[in-house]
């Protein structure tokens, strides 16, 4: 199963202890090229300044670097890092409530294999989060898209639709692309069937 080389992942480490930072970095380097630490920061604010350049897949962070009150709001802090998985680096007692916010955690007594495995799991958990969030918001037609679809089903041209809805032709085209992406229906007569079956229009309106 592991015949194909795994994707190279960039990680940043936010950890005040130089010993732990150096140790983790060595451990990951020894395990191969799958995970590479491309930046180490003593404080989260230092990382945030550099974040847009680094664009990491993983953020390894010692939860203790946050003040006690801020520990439960880690996601707010990393709002700009939508794509990255958050992994806690744990070497003292951290409340389970706090750990729940991370996609995974590694413990100071974990061996190299276990750490790699946990990092992979964290990336999977992060991906899963994105996919399930997308399902709710992006597959159903919006109200605006339904309106545009009705106009298409009535046989109106893009120009006519733009004029009726007071939008640009460019916007109409972009709505139509989204309608087709969501429904999988490409032809005008197919869209007419969709509109009729969903009672968006009446048969008399298309004759």
């Amino acid at each position, binding site marked *: 199963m592991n015949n194909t080389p795994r994707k190279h992942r960039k990680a940043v480490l936010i950890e005040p202890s130089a010993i732990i930072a150096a140790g983790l970095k060595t451990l990951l380097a020894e395990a191969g090229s799958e995970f590479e630490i491309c930046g180490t920061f003593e404080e989260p604010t230092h990382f945030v300044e550099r974040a847009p350049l680094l664009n990491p897949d993983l953020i390894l962070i010692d939860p203790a670097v946050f003040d006690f009150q801020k520990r439960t709001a880690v996601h707010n802090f990393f709002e700009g890092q939508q794509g990255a998985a958050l992994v806690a680096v744990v070497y003292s007692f951290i409340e389970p409530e706090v750990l729940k916010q991370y996609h995974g955690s590694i413990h100071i007594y974990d061996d190299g294999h276990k750490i790699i495995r946990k990092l992979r799991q964290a990336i999977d958990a992060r991906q899963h989060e994105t996919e399930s969030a997308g399902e709710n918001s992006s597959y159903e037609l919006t109200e605006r898209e339904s309106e545009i679809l009705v106009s298409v089903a009535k046989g109106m041209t893009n120009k006519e639709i733009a004029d009726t809805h007071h939008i640009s032709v460019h916007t109409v085209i972009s709505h139509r692309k989204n309608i087709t992406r969501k*429904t*999988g229906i490409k032809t005008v007569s*197919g869209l*007419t069937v969709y509109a*009729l079956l969903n009672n968006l229009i009446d048969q008399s309106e298309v004759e």
Partner: protein
Amino acid sequence: MKHLLFSERMKMADLIHANYRLLFVLPRFGIQLGFGDKSIGEVCLMHGISTRLFLLVCNIYTFDDFLPDASELHSFTAEDLTDYLHNSHADYTREQIPEIRRQVLALIGCCEAKNGRILERFFDDYNREVTRHFNYEETVVFPYIHNLSEGEKSDEGYSIGQFEKNHSNIEEKLGDLKNILIKYLPDMCPGSARNKLLLDLYLLEDDLNKHSLIEDRILVPLVEQLEERMR
């Protein structure tokens, strides 16, 4: 790649085991099932068909990235190919599409009357479009190729360059029909009727895609070579 392709010494029956979609192809060459353990070469000889063309079609149907070398196009005539395409058209319009239409009508029987009418209208629309496309090939393209093969120049200025390579609207309508059946049509039929129809639509779609591929990538270059020689 080459050693993976079908060859004339293989058993005809093994062809079907390797790709059951070829069940559609055999009758278009006039080959009926029940050929025993004969090889591909023997069966083709018995039926007087070009083994090269038969293998070419079977290979295209089976191996997704297979396309023949330009030199192989000379191992059969353009009219061998148009005969096959003509038989394919007849198969679509007389057998496959009417069978699908029968299933669509049965499904309509379990739908609300309003929805049934919508579906029937859409299917007939699709049917008309496919028929129109085939008719164009039968009445304009194939006679042109026939004349060209006889060494006659076309006086109406038609050339294969005008061949409608764009099958996309027909393909899109079929895709839409699948989506409507999978997602949007409410019905009260037992599930198997709709499933059977969908499975047949998937098979038809695959078959039509290969048919278009043969026209665009085999027929057109072959006729272009003929035109070249006439000049």
